[in-house]
């Protein structure tokens, strides 16, 4: 019997939501790590019972948790994230040089092939890797030592490395994104990195078409077409058909092209989901109507999906890591809000139902499809 496991990170703990393949009746487990911020939970594609969680606190710092039984029990792993060599400085909000300092892990990306290998995207922006199941962490320092590092600067939420995407067809290729440095790609397993921001236009930076400095909010791809990338930038929804070498805008008829998450349908590589947010200064849906927008044409032509979603007086946000899809048929789509709701659509976005309504603010949503 197939089923799904939805992993939800919130401001005050982690939650595991499970259902069978119908995705109608849900069991809720949690809070795990009650009272801690759980920025991200993610399962290993190679072993679905292997989960990793980023647990952090302003008081007590960073913890990494690991489960070997699908989230029933957890084990504390290594929490030392030491930058390689002398960290140096990046650019602060006021343009001055600011020392690189570890703050927290935003995103954990387990390897497609090995349950013990996992990457971590951290603030201040850097990529770390563990090959022993999370006990020890080593910086993939070729990224931060890319020549542009001293010019990276934080977005409003901090200088975070929030997106890590492995190319399923090429183990040497990986994409990452940093707010507010932009997107980068490696083609040699992390030794060297190339900024891939050509075509991005950000009017809020001194050079709107600079090589780095863009506030990329999220990138997504479909595993069957790893050269096609979709990006939700601070403003603008973008698409690349050449592995990030160039980008073009596909915001089309969206009511606003500001937003955070972006996802691709599990079975339709040209079907893309975003959640438009009013503006960079008003982080909630336009007109108080929570609408997911779906394009079936790879962008430009978007339809609002509203069935089951609040269409009045709704002023929540959906953060960058808080949307995911399952791989059942029909494809399920999930997202969590800063108001504590986790919505599920078992029909590709046509209709939505809240799985839970009253969690703490949701930071991340990931889905595992179980067989």
């Amino acid at each position, binding site marked *: 019997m197939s089923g799904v496991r939805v992993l939800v990170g919130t401001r005050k703990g982690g939650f595991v939501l499970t259902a069978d393949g119908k995705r109608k009746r849900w069991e809720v487990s949690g809070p795990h790590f009650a*009272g*801690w911020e759980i920025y991200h939970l993610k399962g290993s594609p190679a072993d679905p019972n292997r989960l990793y969680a980023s647990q952090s*606190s*302003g*008081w*007590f*710092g*960073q*913890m990494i948790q690991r489960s070997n039984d699908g989230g029933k029990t957890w084990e*504390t792993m290594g*929490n*030392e994230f*030491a930058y390689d060599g002398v960290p140096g400085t990046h650019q602060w909000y006021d343009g001055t040089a600011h020392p690189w300092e570890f703050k927290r892990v935003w995103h954990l990306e387990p390897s497609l092939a090995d349950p013990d290998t996992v990457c971590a995207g951290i603030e201040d922006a850097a990529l770390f890797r563990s090959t022993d199941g999370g006990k020890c962490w080593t910086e993939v320092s070729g990224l931060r030592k890319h020549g542009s590092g001293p010019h990276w600067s934080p977005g409003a939420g901090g200088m975070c490395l929030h997106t890590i995407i492995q190319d399923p067809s090429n183990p040497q290729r990986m994409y990452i994104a940093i707010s507010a440095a932009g997107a980068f790609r490696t083609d040699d397993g992390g030794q060297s990195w190339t900024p891939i921001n050509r075509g991005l236009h950000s009017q809020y930076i001194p050079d709107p078409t600079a090589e780095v400095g863009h506030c990329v909010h999220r990138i997504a791809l479909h595993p069957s077409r790893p050269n096609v990338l979709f990006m939700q930038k601070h403003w603008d929804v973008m698409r690349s058909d050449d592995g990030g070498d160039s980008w073009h805008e596909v915001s089309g008829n969206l009511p606003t092209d500001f937003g955070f998450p972006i996802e691709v349908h599990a079975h339709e590589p040209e079907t893309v989901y975003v959640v438009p947010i009013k503006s960079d200064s008003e982080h909630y849906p336009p007109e108080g109507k929570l609408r997911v927008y779906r394009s079936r044409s790879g962008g430009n032509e978007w339809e609002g999906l509203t069935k089951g979603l609040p269409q009045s007086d709704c002023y929540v946000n959906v953060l960058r890591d808080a949307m995911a899809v399952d791989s059942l048929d029909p494809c399920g789509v999930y997202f969590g809000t800063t108001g504590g709701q986790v919505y599920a659509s078992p029909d590709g976005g046509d209709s939505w139902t809240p799985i839970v309504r009253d969690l703490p603010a949701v930071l991340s949503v990931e889905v595992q499809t179980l067989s």
Partner: protein
Amino acid sequence: MIRVVLPQHLRTLAGVGAEVELQVNGQATVRSVLDSLEARYPVLRGTIRGHADQRRRPFIRFFACERDLSHDPPDTPLPEAVVAGAEPFLVIGAVAGG
């Protein structure tokens, strides 16, 4: 024996109750007490002070005998009442946040 009181979240992480009793080798100081605490409960490494620089985390405070010891140099001897076990060494999480 040095008696150490931890904040709730660290008790949960370490799997301990309200108070921990530690044997400290040599002179009892903030540094030697934390060394002993982390040796016995490795999960607490990095939660009270930094891994590399050993600096107290900003939202952590140390108290004993109704005194704030947070800004004392880490090798300052602890009060005699703490060394004798009459008073606990308190690790406090700042009252802040939501």
